[in-house]
């Protein structure tokens, strides 16, 4: 099957089902061939206290970022018009070991953004109420190890997010098994997300003044059910492979109700309309390799397919370069090729005889690039004080990059973060300094 991409390039697409099935086979096949290793080092990246018998520290990460974008294909104004947006966000992550084998992780997110396109939701009134918005989100995850050797993990997540015209609640259950080599890991997760539009806002302000109203929308709710299956294992003493496949089913209101459509055969304006059921099939493969003592290569590939006809291939390469034991510089490049779904047409490209339509360029044929770099400094300060502080600075990191798309959209992002550990004394000995 050949798919035509807007800029004239033609790519040959792999048969989606063949690719998806192939990697699922690979993952399952590898699952049955896990082998034991002779060493007893702890598993890479394990989030639990399974292998750490001494008191784990409380870990705190604070990350802030600034994001700015500009483009000329806003879906709010029917596929034309400014997409200028600026977003300032802060994220706080706190990891608290409750007891051996049990932990709690809290993720808080708050972002404030100004959006010129959102301000054009109602051009008659220039709805200043939607020109800026505040989004807040909080997730809590409890993880506990089970089994005689504590090789199994069960985690449960509960969370919500809220913005002016949108509210979400989510819950997830995840199961993971660590194989006896302490490095191979099989995980499966099931999550449910409930979204509802406009419960805390006057919807009439969000709809175009030239449209009669949202009364004919079938629902204002969206349900998303996701199942993920992941497997990671070392291929070599210095190479790690991770495969993750997912299936996400969504039903309800899948369109954005204040995205407008400008027709070719009528002066009327309508809302974006999309089918009420969507199934997404993402599949990702990641290979991390320790190329040299000063270089690690992190490569990932992701394939995506859904029943709207949208397909995508994403490739990312990150090269963490270590300058000494404290500083890491990580240049990163990502390429994304996407074949838009069948309901997309640019402004003025739809006809009133169609049932489903959108002019959201995020769903269109596009190529995108992201190039950036990250810098991480993890100093080591010997704790020589008589009564050492329990708050230990862990790392400072900064990251930035530029993103550009084949339709003229571009954006840039900078972020910075700090990490601390709150050390705890071993049980039963209050005089010992923290570890």
């Amino acid at each position, binding site marked *: *099957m050949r798919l035509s991409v807007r800029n004239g390039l033609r790519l*040959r697409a*792999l*048969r989606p*089902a063949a690719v998806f*099935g192939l990697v699922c*086979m690979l993952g*399952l*096949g*590898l*699952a*049955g*061939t*896990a*082998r034991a290793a002779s*060493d007893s*080092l702890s598993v890479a*990246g394990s989030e639990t206290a399974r292998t750490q018998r001494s008191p784990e520290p409380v870990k705190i990460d604070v*990350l802030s*970022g600034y994001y700015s*974008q500009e483009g000329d294909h806003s879906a709010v104004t029917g596929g034309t018009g400014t997409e200028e*947006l600026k*977003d300032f966000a802060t*994220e706080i992550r706190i990891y608290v070991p409750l007891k051996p084998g049990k932990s709690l992780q809290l993720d808080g997110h708050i972002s404030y953004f100004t959006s010129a396109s*959102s301000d054009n939701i109602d051009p008659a009134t220039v709805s200043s109420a939607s020109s800026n918005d505040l989004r807040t989100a909080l997730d809590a995850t409890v993880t506990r190890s089970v089994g005689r050797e504590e090789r199994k993990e069960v985690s449960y997540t509960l969370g919500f*997010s809220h913005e002016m015209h*949108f509210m979400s609640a989510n819950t997830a259950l995840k199961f993971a098994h660590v194989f*006896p*080599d302490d*490095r191979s890991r099989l995980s499966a997760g099931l999550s449910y*997300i409930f*979204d509802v539009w406009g419960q805390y806002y006057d919807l009439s302000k969000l709809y175009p003044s030239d449209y009669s109203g949202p009364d004919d929308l079938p629902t204002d709710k*969206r349900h*998303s059910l996701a199942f993920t299956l992941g497997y990671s294992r*070392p*291929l*070599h*003493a*210095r190479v790690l*492979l991770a495969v993750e496949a997912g299936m*996400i089913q969504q039903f309800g209101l899948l369109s*954005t109700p*204040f995205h407008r459509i400008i027709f070719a055969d009528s002066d009327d304006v309508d809302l974006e309309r999309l089918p009420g059921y969507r199934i997404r099939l*993402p*599949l990702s493969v990641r290979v991390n390799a320790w190329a040299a003592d000063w270089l*690690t290569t*992190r490569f990932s590939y*992701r394939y*995506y397919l859904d029943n709207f006809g*949208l397909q*995508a291939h994403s490739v990312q390469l990150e090269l963490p370069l270590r300058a000494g034991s404290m500083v*890491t510089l990580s240049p990163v490049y990502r390429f*994304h090729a*996407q074949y*838009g779904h069948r309901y997309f047409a640019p402004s003025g490209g739809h006809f009133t005889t169609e049932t489903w339509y959108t002019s959201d360029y*995020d*769903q269109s044929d596009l190529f995108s690039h992201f190039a950036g770099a990250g810098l991480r400094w993890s100093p080591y300060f010997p704790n020589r004080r008589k009564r050492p502080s329990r708050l230990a600075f862990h790392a400072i990191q900064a*990251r930035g990059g530029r993103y550009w*798309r084949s339709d003229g959209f571009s954006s840039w*992002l900078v972020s910075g973060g700090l990490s601390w550990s709150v050390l705890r004394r071993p049980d039963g000995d209050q005089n010992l300094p923290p570890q």
Partner: protein
Amino acid sequence: MLFWDLEGILRAQGVTGAFRQACFCFTAPEKRLITSFFDRRAGYVISFSGYAATRTFVFWGMAANQSTLSANGYRRTGVVIIITVALCAIALASCSGQKAIGGIYLNHPDMLPGSQVSESFEINFQTYREGAAGGRTGSAGAGCGCQ
């Protein structure tokens, strides 16, 4: 699925008829057993993998859609060969012994399989700006997406 396309390779070389083959593999030091049976005419694949040391067994099967098998020709021969070679390379690599020293590399933060914490903002805005969401750490495809 891989083997159905292998039949395509054979057919492209002039070999016709049903394609049926069984595969059996036992690796002694690891006590690992892998068997597969695939039948092009009936359209199914059955595979069994077992690893004695961990008492881990995987059994899976897959049925084929005959119309899917015969459709689309066999134009992807080159791609199939590449995937076949890649899979063989992965399988052979997994047969090599792993030294204990590997842990100091595999446990390094740069080698963690998931996304880094500092990538969360990138993933967030890429989820908004690209219709192909999911399959990465973070959002599974829900959310407003209207920024």
